C-alpha cells in the first residue's frame, strides 16, 4: 500500500507541479507586461532612447531601400514585405511587382485612380490610410497623443509668429480667431499602408516649419510610452487657414520612415545627417490652395 501511495504522489507531483509553475510564470509575465505597457517612460529612459543612433540607422536603411533590386528578385522581396505587413497589392497602380525598381519605390507606391473616394459631405477627411490614434478637443496647452499621454502644443507647432494674436498670453487662444474651439486628430500609418498623404480639407497653407529632431518610432506602443513623442521627432508642420480659421497639417517622421516629401515644397529636406535644434521657417505666401483629397506629399524609407 505504501509503495502504491508513493507512486501515486510521485505521479501527482511530477505532472502537476511543473504545470503549476508554468501557470504562475505565465500569470506573472502577463501582469508584468500589463504594468509595463501602462507605465510612462521616465526622463532618463527617454534620454537613453534618444541617444541611440537612430538617425544613422534610418539613413543606412534608406540607402539600402533605395538600391535597385534585380528584376527576378523583386517579386520575392516585395511579396515577402507585402505578406508580412498586409499590403493590399490589388489597390496598387502597378500590380506587377517587377515594375518597382527598389523597396523604397514599392513602399511609396501610388494607388489606382478612383480607388479612394473623397467624402465631399464632410468638412474634414482622412489625409491618409491608417489608424486613428486619438482625436478630440484641445482645452489646454497640452494635447493628448493617445489617451492620457500628452505633448505640448506650443513645442509642437513652435512660436506663434504667423498671426497677429501675439498680445494673447495663452498660446492655444492665440491660435483661435473667433469663439471657436481647437481640435486635433492623430493618424498612424503602419508599414503596410499606402504611404502617400493628401489634403484633409479645403485650406490654404501659408507657412512651413521644419523641426529637426529625433527619429524615434511612432508606433502606438511607443506613443503610449513616451510623453511628448511628437515634440521630439523630426516633423514638417504646415500652417494656414481654412473656412473655420486656423488649420495645421503635420507629417511626423519615424526611424524607418524618416524622409518626408511635400510636393509643393521643394526646399524641404528631411533626415539630414546632422541633427539641429533649430527649426527652419518658410513663408509659402498666399498662392497655395489645396482641396480635399489633393496629393500633398509622401513618406519615404530612410
Amino acid at each position, binding site marked *: 500500500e505504501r509503495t502504491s501511495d508513493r507512486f501515486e504522489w510521485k505521479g501527482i507531483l511530477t505532472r502537476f507541479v511543473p504545470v503549476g509553475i508554468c501557470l504562475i510564470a505565465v500569470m506573472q509575465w502577463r501582469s508584468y507586461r500589463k504594468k509595463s505597457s501602462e507605465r510612462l517612460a521616465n526622463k532618463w529612459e527617454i534620454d537613453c532612447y534618444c541617444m541611440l543612433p537612430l538617425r544613422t540607422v534610418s539613413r543606412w536603411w534608406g540607402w539600402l531601400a533605395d538600391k535597385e533590386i534585380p528584376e527576378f528578385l523583386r517579386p520575392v522581396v516585395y511579396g515577402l514585405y507585402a505578406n508580412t505587413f498586409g499590403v493590399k497589392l490589388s489597390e496598387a497602380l502597378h500590380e506587377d511587382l517587377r515594375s518597382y525598381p527598389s523597396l523604397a519605390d514599392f513602399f511609396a507606391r501610388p494607388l489606382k485612380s478612383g480607388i479612394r*473616394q473623397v467624402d465631399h459631405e464632410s468638412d474634414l477627411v*482622412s489625409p491618409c490610410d491608417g489608424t*486613428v490614434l486619438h482625436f478630440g478637443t484641445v482645452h489646454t496647452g497640452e*494635447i493628448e497623443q493617445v489617451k492620457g499621454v500628452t505633448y505640448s502644443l506650443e513645442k509642437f507647432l513652435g512660436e506663434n509668429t504667423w498671426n497677429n494674436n501675439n498680445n494673447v498670453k495663452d498660446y492655444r487662444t492665440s491660435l483661435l480667431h473667433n469663439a*471657436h*474651439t481647437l*481640435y486635433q*486628430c492623430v493618424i498612424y500609418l503602419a508599414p503596410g499602408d499606402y504611404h502617400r498623404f493628401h489634403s484633409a480639407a479645403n485650406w490654404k497653407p501659408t507657412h512651413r516649419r521644419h523641426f529637426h529632431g529625433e527619429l524615434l518610432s511612432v508606433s502606438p506602443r511607443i506613443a503610449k510610452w513616451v510623453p511628448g513623442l511628437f515634440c521630439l521627432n523630426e516633423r514638417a508642420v504646415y500652417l494656414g487657414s481654412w473656412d*473655420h480659421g486656423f488649420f495645421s497639417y*503635420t507629417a511626423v517622421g519615424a526611424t524607418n520612415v524618416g524622409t518626408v516629401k511635400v510636393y509643393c515644397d521643394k526646399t524641404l529636406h528631411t533626415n539630414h545627417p546632422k541633427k539641429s535644434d533649430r527649426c527652419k521657417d518658410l513663408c509659402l505666401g498666399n498662392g497655395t490652395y489645396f482641396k480635399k483629397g489633393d496629393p500633398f506629399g509622401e513618406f519615404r524609407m530612410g
Partner: protein
Amino acid sequence: STIVLVFEAPVNFQFTILPGDRVQMGQGLGRV
C-alpha cells in the same frame, strides 16, 4: 509615420470616427 491635424472649428464640429478605427484616404473624419 504619423499625420497630426490641429485645427480651429466651431463648437458644433463633430468627429465621425472612433479611436482605433482604420481609415482610408478621403474618408470623412468630421463635420460642422
